């Protein structure tokens, strides 16, 4: 892909801004609360900007899905999630803020005991691995400049390490605001130009449904329908993955960091509006890419890089730079937040609360900085094992959610006596069952696709095992306790 020097200048300028913010925000840090939660002073606009940009990290994965499956992407990456966001906003957000804690494992200890915190921290650490996002950034830079994947991964990691170590959560949220603006404007800009260049819905429906123009190897005739060619089970499993939100450390962290206990609920509701508008743009960008390919107007290297191809073909100099920066910003904002969350799991949940209870604020901040390097190191190793971003989300999501959802929801909503042993065992049972199911499916794969027992996706048995174990152990153990 050829990129003009102006566009490269815009991308470089963006990285310079990140450096500058990282350098200057250090002045705002005077305590552990400042470093971990920006002093719990997030106002509504910052709350929305940081939540929207952090949450939306897998833009290339969304491109891959919209290109391959069509409008159903909006159902599985949008619609289901909005429902869970609304639940979170109305039933959890303000409670989380009022609890005045730092992390999800803090909540687990509040509901159960130290062992639950320990296990929760491990699963949290896996769930917030920035690996899919670091891989995305590697793919983007590799595609744009032809630089080797590992070199780009290291370069990007270095920038992120710099401003997260220096600025802590303050650095993360202020860079998020810039990234939020870039990603919204960049993604919105492509739609009117695609309509102007290729045509409106008439073009999409004729290009996608005309069998004579079927240049790609897959069926696109159902790309504009609600469910596409996907099975109900496939769609529903993504609905379950949306429950991720209820155990998402990024959501919790932003709720803890809000200025008062009304901002989280309002902020999530405003964010849902942004996600709705944004998801429609991203889904249709992917659909335009596949329709233009079918019509022989665009060459796409792979579904994963379809956004880059369509942007390169459509956007003029300057706007292309803006779009690419928006794309990079989308991924960076999630990668940096997740890196910081992983580091907090190491320093706050494990170091301070399990291994060295008398650690000073200074020691905890130092441990967080080491944690940032460990989290990124782990992510780089993980990203070498997977070549599909969607696969990585799927497996991390399946195992993490199977472990965390039941103990968290029971903790918040069950008013009766709760057994700490039930929480620990349910986390082990849920994640263990899902993992065994995944490994079994992988070992019995047919034609490169995992074959699951009875065609059942791993998250169902994982959640079921977690729920049953919690329920049974809770009954038995609570009786014994009393």
């Amino acid at each position, binding site marked *: 892909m050829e990129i003009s020097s102006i566009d490269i200048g815009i991308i470089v300028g963006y990285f310079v801004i990140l450096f500058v913010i990282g350098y200057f925000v250090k002045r705002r840090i005077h305590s552990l609360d400042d470093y971990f939660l920006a002093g719990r002073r997030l*106002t509504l*606009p910052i709350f929305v900007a940081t939540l929207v940009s952090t949450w939306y990290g897998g833009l290339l994965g969304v491109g891959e899905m919209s290109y391959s499956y069509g409008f159903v992407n909006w159902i599985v990456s949008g619609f289901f999630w909005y429902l869970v966001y609304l639940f979170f906003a109305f039933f959890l957000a303000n409670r989380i803020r009022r609890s005045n804690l730092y992390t999800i494992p803090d909540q687990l200890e509040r509901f159960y005991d130290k062992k639950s915190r320990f296990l929760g921290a491990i699963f949290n650490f896996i769930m917030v691995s920035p690996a899919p996002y670091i891989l995305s950034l590697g793919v983007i830079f590799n595609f744009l400049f032809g630089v080797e994947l590992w070199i780009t991964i290291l370069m990007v990691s270095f920038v992120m390490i710099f401003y997260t170590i220096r600025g802590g959560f303050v650095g993360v949220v202020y860079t998020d605001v810039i990234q*939020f*603006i870039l990603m*919204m404007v960049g993604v919105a800009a492509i*739609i009117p130009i695609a309509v102007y260049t290729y045509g409106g819905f008439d073009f999409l429906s004729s290009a996608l449904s005309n069998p004579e123009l079927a240049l790609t190897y897959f069926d696109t005739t159902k790309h504009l329908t609600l469910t596409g060619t996907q099975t109900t089970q496939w769609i529903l499993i993504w609905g379950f993955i949306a429950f991720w939100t209820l155990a998402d450390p990024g959501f919790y962290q932003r709720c803890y960091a809000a200025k008062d206990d009304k901002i989280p609920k309002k902020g999530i509701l405003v964010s849902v509006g942004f996600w709705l508008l944004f998801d429609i743009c991203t889904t249709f960008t992917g659909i335009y890419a596949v329709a233009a390919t079918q019509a022989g107007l665009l060459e796409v290297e792979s579904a994963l890089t379809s956004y880059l191809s369509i942007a390169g073909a459509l956007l003029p100099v300057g706007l292309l730079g803006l779009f690419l920066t928006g794309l990079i910003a989308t991924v960076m904002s999630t990668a940096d937040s997740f890196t910081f969350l992983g580091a907090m799991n190491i320093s706050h949940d494990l170091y301070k609360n399990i291994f060295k209870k008398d650690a000073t604020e200074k020691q905890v901040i130092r441990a967080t900085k080491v944690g940032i390097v460990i989290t990124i190191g782990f992510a780089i190793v993980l990203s070498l094992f997977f070549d599909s971003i969607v696969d990585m989300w799927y497996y991390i999501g399946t195992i993490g959610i199977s472990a965390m959802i039941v103990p968290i929801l029971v903790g918040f909503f069950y008013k009766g006596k709760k057994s700490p042993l039930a929480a620990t065992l349910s986390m082990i049972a849920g994640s263990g069952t899902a993992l065994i199911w995944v490994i079994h499916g992988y070992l019995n794969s047919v034609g490169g696709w995992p074959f699951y027992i009875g065609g059942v996706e791993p998250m169902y048995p994982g959640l079921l095992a977690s729920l049953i174990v919690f329920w049974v152990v809770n009954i038995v153990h609570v009786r014994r306790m009393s």
Partner: protein
Amino acid sequence: MDLTFFLILDAVALIVATTVLTYFFFKDLLKEKGSK
């Protein structure tokens, strides 16, 4: 009405909403600076 119109409206609404949010962000930031 043609669905294309709604698609463009969506993109325009996204840019407008982002501009409004950015305005309030800077307003808060300046207020915070002023109060120091």
